[in-house]
């Protein structure tokens, strides 16, 4: 079983809402940086898997997935 599906995306969407209003850097990168700083590798993997599997998400969240650091396989 993986980390509650909707919750990770909901948390990422909240981050997107914040970073989307910041002028200093592109929101997807900022969201990913915040996720990399504060989520465990497993949560990050679940998140990316969910996005890759086509989970519904804000475009910023979707783009952020590309910048999320994944644990070495």
């Amino acid at each position: 079983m993986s980390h509650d599906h909707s919750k990770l995306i909901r948390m990422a969407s909240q981050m997107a809402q914040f970073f989307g209003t910041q002028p200093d850097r592109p929101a997807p990168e900022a969201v990913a940086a915040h996720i990399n700083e504060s989520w465990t590798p497993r949560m990050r993997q679940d998140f990316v898997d969910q996005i890759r599997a086509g989970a519904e998400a804000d475009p910023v969240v979707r783009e952020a997935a590309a910048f999320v650091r994944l644990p070495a396989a």
Partner: protein
Amino acid sequence: MKDFIIPDRDMGTPAVNSDVTVNLLVDGIPVSVPAGTSVMRAAAVAGISVPKLCATDHLAAFGSCRLCVVQIEGMRGLPASCTTPVAEGMVVHTQTDEVAQVRKGVMELYISDHPLDCLTCAANGDCELQDMAGAVGLREVRYEPGKNHFTRRDAEGPNPEYRPKDQSNPYFTFDPAKCIVCSRCVRACEEVQGTFALTIEGRGFDSRVSAGMASDSFLSSDCVSCGACVQVCPTATLIENSVIQIGTPEHIVKTTCAYCGVGCSFDAHMRGEEVVRMVPSKDGKANHGHSCVKGRFAWGYATHRERQTQPMVRERITDPWRVVSWDEALDFAATRLRQAQADFGRDSIGVITSSRCTNEETYLVQKLARAVFHNNNTDTCARVCHSPTGYGLKTTFGTSAGTHDFDSVDETDLALVIGANPTDGHPVFASRLRKRLREGAGLIVLDPRQIDLLKTPHMGEGLHLPLRPGTNVAMLTAMAHVIVAEKLYDEAFIRERCDWDEFLAYAEFLLDPRHAPEAVETLARVPAELIRKAARAYAAAPRASIYYGLGVTEHSQGSTTVMAIANLAMLTGNIGKPGTGVNPLRGQNNVQGSCDMGSFPHEYPGYRHVSDPETRAIYERAWGVELSPEPGLRIPNMFDEALAGRFRGLYCQGEDIVQSDPDTRHVTAALAAMDIVVVQDLFLNETSNYAHVFLPGSSFLEKNGTFTNAERRINMVRRAMTPKNGYEDWEVTQMLANRMGAAWSYTHPREIMAEIALTTPSFAGVSYDLLEREGSVQWPCNDKAPLGTPVMHIDGFVRGRGKFVHTEYVATEERTGARFPLLLTTGRILSQYNVGAQTRRTENVVWHPEDILEIHPSDAENRGIREGDWVRVASRSGDTTLRAHITERVAPGVVYTTFHHPTTQANVVTTDNSDWATNCPEFKVTAVQVSPSNGPSEWQEEYRHHSDLARRILPTAAE
């Protein structure tokens, strides 16, 4: 060895600050004191104690007892030394024939109306009246027995002047028969506490101390039981019940209160290993001799009969507890934790450190996770209170801490209080703020509820912006809009200390009409003109300070709100000088410390990210293990992972997450899904209902260590008695770690602090020797600041330039609708503390026996709810029942309650919404419906059933 400290000498009148020094001669001894000092204090400085009764250095001079008269050359008569200021070249004689004669006469009058039961009096040995009778050489009372206040009856019948003792307060007794009407208690209630509950009624011989109206007792009056009156009373008139019961103390142990984040210093007055009373230390740098009902009186929980002192284990959480040896309990815990890791991987277990435990204990618990579990699954209850403060202030200023010390409030011209209720949550700070408000400082309160600070007696105008819960960011951004639009900002400060281009970008953002007060008015339901008025007042004050609490952080936009606050301070230059700043009021005693000590899963001690190779190298060297560069699980993540079957074991020290964390059903389901839950606590708390191992904890009176208060002040906690469970909490953690393969060999917390100092730059200069010498220090404490740092960011921000973060308002997902039309917000009350585990086990329950729901009259009427009715509060998470109190303190559409009692379980109702940056739960906004009810909810019944079952302890076999 016991710390024996001679009680601070009373200098008679308070110290005075002045640049001008005055020289005088007292009894032939030359003395130099600051101008404005009293003759009495100057004499005390010279080592001479002038007899006194109404004077004490806690209070301004009053000049009523006439005992402190002296002779001053060139002055007529005998002036009172307490009210006479020194003058250059003054020649004072504190003892002459005439002075002695007058004093003896005065004492004779006092004693003529005072019982002579000294031997059996509770103040025997600690009575200033007794001392003064001795000091002036009183040998006889020549007055015939007559009209008096102390005899119950005489030959002619009952004495009409006699008043019986008032024993309504559970902690102290008021015995009018012993009162000398020196007014110290009344003055303390006004000057120190700021409540104005006491007064002198009547005149002349009829003068009496009275709490509230004539019909009031101490309990029914406005008295908040802070103990200031008891502390200054020179006789047995106001005295602690514990002293009446036990007798006078024989030694003092200096320590720090284990309640809120003010971190008051206390003198534990001991007789053997029994606490006789706790008296706030006059030299305490946070509290300067003041206290509240919790620290002063509510320490009885430490010896409460429900205290658990033996380790216990059980296979399943539905089994009864089995009392076992420490060895068995620790082996059981260690084996199961290792088994979980073997079965489910290294990351399947974790720890929760405690904001109620010491820095040293917290440090060891996070070290256990990092160095022994080999993961970073460590979090602390600050997750659910001030984690947004950490994120917000680190982003804007560069460090995760409040900027100022509490003393700074004495210099503030205006206090902006946001989402905090200091008179209840941080009472000693509130008293200091109220003093400043009486001196004329302005007050602005941003809070959905009308807090008591707004009713401060004798203050000037206080502005209340009763905003709708969840609109903090919109409100603060509107205030910033006004400051920029009306050019009220401090351009020089911004140019020097921040990035001007960043400011321009932020200004452009702010000037958009969507941030104007007129636009925000509809969201926050506060008139635009009031928002403008508040913004102008904050910007106009020469020194404006911001104090905030959990009403800021516990929101989905908690971190954004903290940054909006930081922006306001930077825009107006209110940083870096006394009287200004951004000051989070921390909930628990060691919230600051537990965060500093690396409790968060992404940060080592001193707020250094786990991915930073240099920091990791420091700890890998110190601990001799390889460390994980990846962030661990936060508390809510732990619960989610537990429900996903991947998180299987938890060591939880001194926190009651079942009661204190949101969405109780989610928390209990997560705990029930784990293989091993180890709880270390004083009591079988709510979380222990889901535990397999119970390790008994030690109270703050039973251990050595340090707490760090809201002003970054590291205060000593000293052991006053032997731990009832046999070990200090850090020893228990060490035993568990060693069972799991660590080879720790700390013999005293000072060694743990030495390791912290060695590995953490901001603590580099901290040592127990320094703390013993200085009393306390505020971090950063290192080569650059060897004695610590009272005010931060004086010449520049820690991060270099202050950062203006854009603060767009995003409405919370928690919205009212047809099903849940009201907004519930939560808070705390003076007499209770957090989950109530401690205060519920004291007499404090007389003030707050249950949690109640505050509801506006119109909302109550619409629902047919009357005062005191049982009501059901339901949200999308769950429902609970409690009693209603109808009041206009809350706005229509808003209801309010506290979370001190487990039977109410207010957190069954709160949701899993959280702060976008830190997952701090949104405790302060829950959409609810309220309806009449006739009994406990299904959940409450179910929970009570499990709780009764889970708390059973098997009787131990007869020896």
